[in-house]
């Protein structure tokens, strides 16, 4: 499923809404999550899962082509942990 298919699915269930309204709702949904993560915060959607960020230390890497050592700076990376309900639903027979 891609974004446009998500919009279609929501439109089908909500015939009273205009397509551009659905699009704005979906935009706000993902933008708010992204923004909070960019600020270093956490997003908790019970049953679905939780988004957070983790710190990665600086490390020495290697250019895979030349084998030359390079310094990889420390950074913050996104992390997602699926919720209990989600995990169970994926494995329900």
């Amino acid at each position: 499923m891609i974004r446009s298919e998500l919009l279609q699915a929501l439109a089908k269930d909500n015939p009273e809404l205009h397509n551009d309204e659905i699009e704005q709702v979906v935009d706000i949904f993902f933008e708010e999550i992204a923004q909070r993560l960019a600020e270093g915060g956490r997003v908790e959607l019970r049953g679905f899962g939780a988004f957070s960020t983790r710190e990665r230390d600086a490390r020495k890497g290697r250019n895979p082509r030349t084998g030359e050592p390079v310094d990889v700076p420390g950074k913050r990376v996104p992390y997602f942990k699926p919720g209990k309900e989600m995990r169970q639903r994926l494995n329900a027979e």
Partner: protein
Amino acid sequence: MMRSVGTLTRADLAETINRKLGFSRAESLGLVEAILEKICAAMTHGENVKISGFGSFVLRDKKERVGRNPKTGVEVPITPRRVMTFRASQLLKDRIAKG
């Protein structure tokens, strides 16, 4: 160091939708739930979900492996299972790395 910000929840997402688009609080909460439910339903049917600019929710099938009860040390089989992972888009990774 990163300043600490609180946890964003369904209620906060609904609040923003209410404020920016004027849907009632109940409608806004319903829409948040509907988005999550659509993603969840697609994944339950074995589909990956890809949201451009944000990231992908990707299913992975794990084989059975031997685990250990950390308390007792007793070996137990971990049954094969399907798990959901999230791969952030390059755009989201860049936004988070910059802080």
